[in-house]
């Protein structure tokens, strides 16, 4: 076995438990009471913690929530590992423990080599100090020695593209420039292991590409990278190994492609989509407006969660207006998994309601999405209503989800390759001449 493949991070039975509600009020009496209680009942906190662990899974028990349970993982030199999972799956907690920001409750992690952690770009930069000084300070916070920064200084400046502003306090910098500066410093971190948490979500597209390029370069040097991201496309290109976390446990490890596929399948599982929402707690006319119900139906009026791309669908929405308003529009946004608003539609677009007052009452409305409009993907729907530039009187973010599926249409491809873009409408192509 070559040196390249020796393990550099070995995670053994790591669990992490967060206590709930104990610290925020910091009530001395309650804390004292708990200590007394534990002391009197003859078990210390560690004992009760272990007990709770066997009894219960990830759930909240005795004011304690397990963010990670029994994680065992070995990461070998040169691996570029993508970690995926839903919000709250434990991704960030795992990275925090590996980068020593907090300690595990149980288990241990053995590390070979120096770890550079990039949980946030530009950490510790001071607005009153110049770019030059901040490069040094940020670098030192990340653990680079002064001599080392001296050596890399020109490269860092070059990469960040702010040579002209070197002696300007960074409070005069735009956010984008600060991010660039921060990433430039971090990118030149000469550590064996690099931990990156969703840092690439910032900065413009061009710079993101530059960052990814730099990270690929780091990866090709045989350094180990741990990467958390929600961007499957990036993970797919970038990582060779994947880890899927769910509720604090490892679901699957293996090649990144397989992990992504497994994760996407899980995500599109019927049970994880809510296509029907009923407001059961309608308050007495406290709010100016209230969403009562929203659901999806196909052309025949059947309730659905997913529908083929060549079929139209109708969204039914029922809501209550408690006051009279001089002008109102009801809006709906279709948002894809990356958070992009693919389409926004307003009820004043196709009705004669524009500019007219609306009386209090319960409104039932529908909006129809024609066939071959949205790409086959999962969408979530956000509904809001209000007077433009005056007030929003109703807002329901990501209230339902639906999936546009694809089966035997023009989008079907033999290779199974996903089409890019947002719109599935087939356009008209013509061959004007062909020289066969």
């Amino acid at each position: 076995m070559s040196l390249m493949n020796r393990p550099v991070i070995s995670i053994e039975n790591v669990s992490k438990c967060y206590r709930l509600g104990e610290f925020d009020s910091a009530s001395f009496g309650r804390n004292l009471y708990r200590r007394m209680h534990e002391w009197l009942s003859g078990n210390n906190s560690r004992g009760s913690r272990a007990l709770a662990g066997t009894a219960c899974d990830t759930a909240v028990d005795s004011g304690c929530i397990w963010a990670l349970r029994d994680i065992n993982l070995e990461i070998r030199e040169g691996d570029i590992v993508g970690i995926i999972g839903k919000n709250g799956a434990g991704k960030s907690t795992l990275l925090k423990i590996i980068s020593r920001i907090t300690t595990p409750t149980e288990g241990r992690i053995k590390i070979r080599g120096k770890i550079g952690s990039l949980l946030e770009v530009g950490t510790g930069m001071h607005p009153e100090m110049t770019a030059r000084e901040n490069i040094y300070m940020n670098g030192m916070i990340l653990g680079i020695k002064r001599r080392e920064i001296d050596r890399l200084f020109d490269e860092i400046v070059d990469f960040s593209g702010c040579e002209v502003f070197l002696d300007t306090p960074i409070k005069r910098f735009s956010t984008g420039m600060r991010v660039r500066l921060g990433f430039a410093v971090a990118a030149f971190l000469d550590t064996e292991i690099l931990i990156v948490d969703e840092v690439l979500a910032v900065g413009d597209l061009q710079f993101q590409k530059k960052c990814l390029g730099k990270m690929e370069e780091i990866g090709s040097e045989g350094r180990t990278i741990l990467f958390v991201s929600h961007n499957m496309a990036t993970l797919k290109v970038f990582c060779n190994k994947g880890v899927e976390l769910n509720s604090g446990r490892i679901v699957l490890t293996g090649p990144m492609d397989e992990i992504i596929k497994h994760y996407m399948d899980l995500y599109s599982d019927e049970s994880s989509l809510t296509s029907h929402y009923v407001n059961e707690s309608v308050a007495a006319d406290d709010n100016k407006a209230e969403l009562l119900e929203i659901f999806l139906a196909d052309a025949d009026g059947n309730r659905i969660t997913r529908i083929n791309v060549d079929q139209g669908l109708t969204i039914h929405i029922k809501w209550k207006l408690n006051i009279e308003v001089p002008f109102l529009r009801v809006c709906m946004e279709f948002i894809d998994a990356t958070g992009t608003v693919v389409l926004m539609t307003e009820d004043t677009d196709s009705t004669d309601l524009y500019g007219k007052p609306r009386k209090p009452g319960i409104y039932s409305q529908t909006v129809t999405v024609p066939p071959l409009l949205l790409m086959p993907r999962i969408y979530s729907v956000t509904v809001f209503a209000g007077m433009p530039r005056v007030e929003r009187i109703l807002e329901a973010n990501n209230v339902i989800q639906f999936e546009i599926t694809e089966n035997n249409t023009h989008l079907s491809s033999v290779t199974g390759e996903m089409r890019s873009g947002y719109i599935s409408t087939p356009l008209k192509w013509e061959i004007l001449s062909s020289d066969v």
Partner: protein
Amino acid sequence: MNSVEKEAWDDIIGPQRGLLDLKIGEIWNHRDLLFMFIWRDFKTAYKQTALGFLWVVLQPVLMMAVYIVVFSRIARIPTEGVPPAVFFLCGITLWNYFTHCLNRTANTFVQNSNIFGKIYFPRLITPLSKTLSGLINLSVQFALLIAVILYFVYTGQGIHMTGYLLMVPVLVILTGCLGLGTGLIISSLTVTYRDLMFVVSFGVQLLMFASAVFYPVSIIPEDYRSFILWNPMVHILEAFRYAMVGAGAHSLTGLLYASTFAFVTLFSGVVIFNRVEQTFIDSV
């Protein structure tokens, strides 16, 4: 393969480090960062102020003026035959350093929770840098003190510096240790009990009254004296005034007591801080 596997690991992260596993070597490795933080404190302290660094001198001068009026002219507190200006300025100078160390380190965790939550470096660097950057202000104010003393020596007003002057660096270190140690303990406890933040702000003011900053120990009635001598700052301030202007009742025993107190405080502070540092981020 086996020989590779057996190769030593560089670091092992477990649930809790030992109580005395203080990782002092790590601080040495991060000394560049320590100096960078000191430079940052120095550079940014008086940004966007009209008078800038002048405040370092203005503050003790104004304090001294107020003390002369209130404590010397109105309350008629004797100053052991030394001009009140010098007597008060001695106390103000060293006391300023103590409060700087205490105030700036007591909020370490709360104030730095953002950066501590994002990146690891030895946390002790932060309070340590505050303690050391306080030395910059101290040296400026000390220079002012020397200037005032020289003025009175020149005009022949019965001031004599003593050989004790050589002790001044030791007294400064003791003050720093006390301030830092107390600050570390408070910052660690503040993570759980935010109440302490309020205690610090007026606690320091109360402590000043019990620390012989503007009065000599000799005027304290016998009954109270043994009580006030429990305060280590009293011994340090008395020794400091004796060193600078030859006034005050210095005692070697007192200084030994203060040194022990300072080092025990600092050591406990470091141990507690080291304990809290590992998981505090979970509770903010």
